[in-house]
């Protein structure tokens, strides 16, 4: 369960594929409790990410993730741009080895979560991507495992449906936000699902 350059690239390309094919889904989720652009923001940004990392040479996962971070920051926009941008930047700074093992991966995710929370000033339970990232980090800190990663990401993503929003536009909607999945939590699930798949295929 190790992450090298090739696996990192595979992870990001898989993530982009999921975003592109679920663009409309993300957008319609955001239409219910946000401003209806999450699919557009993510699809635009990750299209560019995919192009940028395709041709380039990288010496470490950190190297790839840094490129992803700066592209996401510049191209995604909205709230998710700075949040995912920060997440990828923190991951790239957390571990600079050529091959990152399970403990290293858990550490990277922990740093990313800290970055997201610092940037967005959200805590768990406020119906944001933090509600997926925090359970994932807790589980992976016990033991990094791709099956468990997918499981926890999925169940915590699904659990956002019952939460009440207190951040962003959705906050004004209050109780009405209940009953809808949080769009950023769904895209975060894709991120972890893609990561799990890439790690499993590299074995």
């Amino acid at each position: 369960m190790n992450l090298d350059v090739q696996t990192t690239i595979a992870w990001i390309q898989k993530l982009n594929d999921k975003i592109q094919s679920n663009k409309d889904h993300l957008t319609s989720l955001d239409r219910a409790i946000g401003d209806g652009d999450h699919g557009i923001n993510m699809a635009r940004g990750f299209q560019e990410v995919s192009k940028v990392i395709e041709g380039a040479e990288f010496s470490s996962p950190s190297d790839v993730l840094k490129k992803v971070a700066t592209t996401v920051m510049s191209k995604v926009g909205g709230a998710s741009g700075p949040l995912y941008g920060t997440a990828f930047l923190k991951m790239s700074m957390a571990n600079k080895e050529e091959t990152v093992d399970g403990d290293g991966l858990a550490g990277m995710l922990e740093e990313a979560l800290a970055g997201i929370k610092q940037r967005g000033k959200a805590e768990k339970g406020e119906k944001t991507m933090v509600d997926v990232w925090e359970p994932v980090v807790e589980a992976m800190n016990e033991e990094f495992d791709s099956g468990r990663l997918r499981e926890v990401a999925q169940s915590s993503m699904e659990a956002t449906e019952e939460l009440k929003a207190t951040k962003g536009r959705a906050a004004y909607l209050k109780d009405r936000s209940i009953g809808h999945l949080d769009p950023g939590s769904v895209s975060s699930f894709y991120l972890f699902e893609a990561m799990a798949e890439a790690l499993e295929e590299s074995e």
Partner: protein
Amino acid sequence: MAVGIVLVSHSEKVTEGLKELLHQVVGEGKIVSAGGDEDGIGTIFERIQAALEEVEGETIVFYDLGSAKMNAEMAIEVAERDDIHLTSAPIVEGAYLAAVESSIGKSLEDIKASLEKEFHIEED
């Protein structure tokens, strides 16, 4: 005009229109618009970064919604300058006050204090 003003909104029309309005009030002055994204409504880190570079010197940054704030914060962190202040004052009314005060030579500290007083906000 001593202190520069950067306007970050989800709409490029809003920041462009506001810039014109402020220019009519204070004449020339460093007012830079960084609004909108490629598909229209949104904010883009790169534009804010470019705006901060264009202004130079003491700068006050206004934003409209929360996600514009995050992008602005990130651009300010990356700029690694300590003469930029991000304010939570309302973008139109706050930038108007700041533009007038800057045009009569007030410092960034003075303008921060005026914004806090006028809009009942606490800045860090």
